[in-house]
């Protein structure tokens, strides 16, 4: 995991565009990888590499918007800059709504593109951090047994009824057992109190 993300993926069906852009960006110190289609990119990308995706909006088969959708769903630590020869207001609005950094109409100034790539990379880094944290929290929750999950779920759902007795009544088990579980849960989730537990759970939920 690099400290500063520096990878730029270029997806465009036009070979000349790919060539000129990759040359220019490498010249400026970016790591560049190029792909001729969305499928090609998806095939190569591992969903973990942090970077900026420069994406042609209008491509045959899978369009840029669709690829954006897929990546969002996969939780990839990527930020997108669209480039398009068909540029139009509705398309750009749609792209930016879906989380794209910008929407550049061809031809564009290299400086504009670089500026956008830099923004995107920085955002991608933050996104990576966020995703990492989220993953860690989730890993902690995944340590819980089914019974423990049940108790946690109850505590999250009813933050006012978290005494062992109340939980025991609810689940039909003895308060003593609940006390035992509670200690295990706090240990597994690496928190000191139920309040912290609920905060952790809410962070997980937000990220998702």
């Amino acid at each position, binding site marked *: 995991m690099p400290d500063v993300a520096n990878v730029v993926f270029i997806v465009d069906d*036009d070979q*000349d*565009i790919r*060539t*000129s*852009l990759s*040359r*220019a960006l490498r*010249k*400026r110190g970016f790591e560049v990888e190029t792909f001729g289609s969305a499928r090609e990119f998806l095939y190569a990308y591992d969903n973990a590499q942090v970077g900026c995706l420069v994406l042609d909006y*209008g491509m*045959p*088969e899978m*369009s840029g918007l669709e690829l954006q959708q897929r990546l969002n769903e996969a939780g990839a630590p990527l930020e997108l800059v669209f*480039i398009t*020869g*068909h*540029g*139009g207001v*509705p*398309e750009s609005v749609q792209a930016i709504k879906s989380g794209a950094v910008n929407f550049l*109409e*061809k*031809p*564009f*100034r*290299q*400086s504009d593109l670089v500026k956008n790539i830099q923004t995107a990379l920085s955002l991608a880094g933050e996104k990576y951090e966020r995703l990492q944290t989220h993953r860690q929290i989730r890993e902690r929750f995944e340590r819980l047994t089914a019974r423990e999950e049940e108790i946690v779920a109850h505590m999250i759902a009813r933050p006012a009824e978290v005494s062992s007795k109340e939980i025991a009544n609810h689940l039909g088990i003895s308060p003593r057992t609940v006390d035992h579980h509670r200690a295990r849960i706090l240990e597994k989730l690496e928190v000191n109190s139920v309040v912290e537990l609920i905060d952790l759970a809410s962070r997980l939920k937000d990220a998702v």
Partner: protein
Amino acid sequence: MRNSLGALLAIGLAGLQFLAVLAVVFSSYVTSESALLSHARDLLRDVGNNTIEHSRGFLRPARGAAELSARLAQNDVIASDNPVLLEKLIFQQLQLAPQFAGVFHGNEEGEFVYVMRTDDGPAPFRSKIIRVDGGVRTTELIWRNDDYSVVERRMDPEDTYDPRTRPWYQRARQELTTIWTDPYIFFSSQQPGITLASPVLSGPGSVRGIVGVDIEISDISDFLGRLRIGSTGKALIIHQNGDVIAHPEKDLLKTEAADGTLRFTNIRSFGDPIAQAAFSDLVRDGSEPADSAQLGQFEYRGETYVSVVMPEVSETLPWTFAAYAPESDFTAVIKHNRLINIWIAAMVAMITGICGLMLANYIHKPVRAFAVRSALISQGELDPSEPLPKTYQELERANTTLMQQIAARKETESEYGQTFALSSRGMVQIEPETGRFLRVNAKFCEMTGYSEEELKQMALADLVHPDDKPFLSWDGVSGEEPIEINHEMRCRCKDGGTIWIAVNGIFVHNQEGRVLHAVFTMDDITLNKRKEEQIAQLSRDLSNLSRDNTMGQMAAGLAHELNQPLTAIAQNADTALLTVKQAPEQHDDELREILEEIEAQSLRAGDIIRALRAFIRKDEGIRSAFDFAELVDQTKRLIIAEAHVVGARIETEIETLRPVMANRVQVAQVLVNLLRNALEALSETGDGPKVVTVSARQHGAEVLVCVTDTGPGVDPSIKLFSEFETTKTSGMGLGLSICRSMVEANGGQLWHEEATGPGARFCFTLNAVADA
């Protein structure tokens, strides 16, 4: 019907009755009349015979007395020259017969003895004795009683009577036999009478004197008066010369002659006009009297009379008896009876007529009830299944048949009526002469907005749009009308709106070829017309769009294609510039300027292209919500002719969709293009089914449309959606590209989907209108 039967029965019965009675009455009348008249004639004949016999009997004693006296004198039994003895003899003779008015004897010397009955003298008998003694003549008058005693005796010196001058004397002397004189009016008694004279012969051919007897014949008139001939019939006796010598009215017999003497009245001037009219001809024609009784009949002043004329009494008495009597004397009773009988017949007829009426009424009552019932049933006011009241067998059978017919007719009518009234199509029945509506159904009323009553006041021509010519004109019944018509008509509704109506109808003719009526079905084809119009409009729009779009797409395609190299140029220029900047030892201001300019120029070219695109984009039309299924239908109809040429079938599988929000014409263009591509692909296939399927389904907020064909599919080597690339010999390779750009312009996407089977499938999405 009712009246005629009743009247027929009444008149028939009454008339028959009347005629029958009348026939009996008249037959009986005629028979009776004939019998009575026959009887009357017999009566008349009998009267005649009686009268003749009576007359003979009346006169016969006179002949006896006269001839006896003459013979006595002739044989000198009495001295005819002795007046005293002669008087006595004559007196005795006179007493013999009451009808003798007088008996007398005259001789050649002029002596005369006459004994007569008298009413005005002092005694019933008077004798007149004329003596001639030596040329001296004396006349003595002696009145005697029945016993011959003298009551008075005197002389009459003024008497000039000479028997020898008298006609009876001269005639008897000349004929030398007993003669009768014609009747005459006696001088002395002024009574009608007749004289019988018988000569007293002294030798052969010589006459001594004449004995005569005067007989008053008024007794015969009295006899006639006593005869009953009917009630008013009269008999009379006419002498040969026409004198009426006996008649019940004796005064009529005498008439005064010019010389003052009395004489008989001739029948021709007789005071009894009926007798005059009836019997004048007896004398006038002078014909020989008949040998037997002549029965006759004559009319006088409107009355019919029967008459009889008898033969002459005898040769010496040439008298004819005649009698007449009005027929009514004999037939009055039966005539009266006939009248009464006619009245009776009339009354019987009247009663029979009334009976007939009542009978007819009685007979007719069930018939009438049946007729009323039938009428009620035919008007639908009575249920035919209602039991028939008690009536005749014949009517019951008729009723059964009638009910069956009514039921059958009602069923037919009801079927027709229901077909007509409940039809989901407009139906009208039209009078052929005028085009007026005879019958319309509810659907037609609904179509036109007029009520049934209003339409029945109108003709078909009234509905035709004022701008159009009436397509049917009825100019009389020429038999030239078409048997059926199929026509589309623009119709003006009540609310002023216009609808199109398809008129299909038949004319119903009778056997003579005359049109009875026309039945039309009226279908509202306004929607169809509108759809056709919409499709035509769509077609026009599409051809416009197609032209505009090809231009626009060319520009857009060029722009995109140009933008790629421009981008590469700009990037490369910038990279080169960066390279120059990173190597200051090779610092070359001019090179940097050149590179900067290259970048600037390529960006400028991009700006120009952007401006051009913006300009084209402006034209992209307005989105609206529309029914996609309807658009598919219309598009299909536009392209169907091309499908037929290829021999392909276009099928649609369209689910229930929300309306889509897009530019309708552009979407239509996309569909047309995809369908045409599919049809072209199918035209290249040989055998096998040729089907193009358009399917559409709701997919979230979008509508997913797929056009699938059964053609050879897409050659994998072909780069689809690339402008200016085509497999077609003609074409610019813009079709799919334009489709994609149009779909994208409407917020959707268009792609080629790898089909699992053979053939190609192109899909695109459209935004649906959000659920309300």
